[in-house]
């Protein structure tokens, strides 16, 4: 492989995949992601899962993998595929069903469970590129730097791949996030998209009280990013902003609700990580079914 000068730019027009997956479908897929998140918790009733931050990013995951990204199993050449780096690895419960929807994982992969050497999925991701899992673990603040490296590799290879990095707003406390953001801005990594699942809560409480990250949009703008602020539960809006790209890296600040979809968990820091009991499971199933029917009713 010959190297490609870093100055090379390609003004590319990446078609929005949501032209093929409708907004209704994306909304239903997000609900299905939540449904599967609940099933994972049900399968391991004694294990506290990071339900709040998994539920908040269900639309982000579904829209990225089914509506925006060229996954490499959708006719895109594998090397040219877009990459997804889940930096907030605790939200992997939402990643697994979205990868199944995109055809990068199978139900059999899920059925192997989350523990032990035979598992493909887990409470935290384990790098497995063939399944679209780019980064291991959930040590916060490492994903954006890794995504920057992936974007740089694509540039050097002359590939038009885009790299999406999903982070938490609490995660932006980590200094390494800003080392990576500096690099991305300085090098005009236009193929990089940082998606902030801004659910406003972290382990110790409201992000604004723990360590106020202030206006993340102004911070990313100051680091050389284009910034889009969006309702992170609006699949059409998400698909729209995630398909934008320019010569500069893009930060999408997606305002979300932690625990979204489970009325008893929404905006409650206790549901950062918690076991789901029988009663909680039944309520969750009923509420998600009602949400699904509402989407279908609105479609008619």
């Amino acid at each position, binding site marked *: *492989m*010959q*190297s*490609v*000068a*870093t100055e090379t730019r390609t003004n590319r027009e990446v078609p929005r995949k949501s032209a093929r997956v409708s907004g209704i479908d994306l909304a239903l897929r997000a609900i299905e992601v939540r449904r599967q998140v609940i099933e994972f918790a049900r399968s391991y009733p004694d294990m506290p899962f990071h339900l709040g931050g998994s539920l908040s990013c269900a639309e982000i995951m579904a829209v990225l993998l089914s509506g925006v990204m060229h996954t490499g199993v959708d006719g895109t050449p594998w090397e040219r595929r877009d990459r997804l780096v889940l930096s907030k690895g605790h939200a992997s419960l939402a990643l697994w069903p979205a990868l199944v929807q995109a055809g990068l994982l199978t139900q059999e992969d899920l059925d192997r469970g989350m523990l032990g050497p035979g598992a493909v999925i887990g409470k935290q991701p*384990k*790098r497995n*590129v063939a399944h679209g899992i780019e*980064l*291991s*673990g959930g*040590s916060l*603040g*490492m994903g*954006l*730097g*890794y*995504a*920057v*490296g*992936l974007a*740089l*590799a*694509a540039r*050097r*290879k002359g590939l038009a791949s885009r790299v999406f990095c999903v982070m938490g707003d609490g995660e932006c406390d980590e*200094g*390494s996030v800003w*080392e*990576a953001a*500096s*690099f991305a801005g*300085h090098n005009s990594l236009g193929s990089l998209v940082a998606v902030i699942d801004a659910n406003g809560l972290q382990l110790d409480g409201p992000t604004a009280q723990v360590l106020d990250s202030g206006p993340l949009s102004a911070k990313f703008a100051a680091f050389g990013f284009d910034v889009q602020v969006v309702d992170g539960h609006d699949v059409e809006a998400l698909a729209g902003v995630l398909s934008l790209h320019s010569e500069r890296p893009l930060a999408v600040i997606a305002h979300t609700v932690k625990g979204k979809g489970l009325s008893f968990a929404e905006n409650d820091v206790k549901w950062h990580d918690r076991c789901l009991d029988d009663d909680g499971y039944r309520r969750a199933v009923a509420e998600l079914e009602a949400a699904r029917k509402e989407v279908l009713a609105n479609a008619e």
Partner: protein
Amino acid sequence: MLSEGLRVCGLDAKVVFGETMARIAKNDPLLTVVVSDYGRRLNLDVMREELPSAFVQCGIAEQSQVEVASALANEGFHVLAPSYATFITSRVLDQVRVMLGMMRSPVILVGLSAGCEAGALGASHMALEDIACVRTIPGVTVVCPADNVELASALEELAAEPRPAYVRVSQYATDMCIHAQGVQRAFGKAEVLRGGADAQVAILSTGPLTGEALRAAEHLSQEGVETSAIEFAVVKPLDTEALDALVGKRLVVTVEDHGVQGGFGSAVAEYLSGVEGAPRVLRLGMPDEYLDADTPQHLLECVGLTAEGIAAHVKAALA
């Protein structure tokens, strides 16, 4: 070969790093050097001319450096990430755990001015814990070349077959050019610099104090304590066959310009603790404290890491 070896040994190790990168760049378009504002001193101009995109600047940001380097390595590039030894190891240890350990990203970290080399700057810039930090990460190869010929050889070997690795570079005014004729043994194998089988004492060394260890072995032998000198350029994975062969010695001595806790000596002691009939191990290195800023030579003299000091430590241990 000899004159070229002596020329290389006489250079600053950072200059040798750049010369080696320039040589690799001629044949390897995948070569990549990711730096954190420590590029200017690394003599990289020729490499950058040969392969402009091989140079990646992260600024003073070692966390980003390791993350970016790991992604590039996993995308198929042959990546080296040099910085001050303490900053590319202990400062970014979690990145090293996740990226090089768990993910097995084939990045070659290069720790410069390790040991006491940066002694004049004081403890913040001296890397005396770096081997200890990195060798606890599963799957990371740890290399401490004794001289610049061995440094160049190790860098070429690793760049040709990238793997998660840490190359520790330190250099002192009194270093001996051990490999002026080139590196003869296979990568990872210990090298017997002074025999032999009838020695009562074996001095094992890693890094640039290997010359002092060899001189100490010569002194001791002249004084009637027959002593062998064996260099372990690769601290991990350790050449355990060479250690097995030490059963029956009266004393094994380890020498390194690293803290006595957790470094090469600890690795040797850990292994020998499980070997039936293994000899006693005397670990020589930097003490368990942060020393005040001083010249490298004075620091090494103070703790007895010179040929004379090592010989004195050995005689005291045998008394």
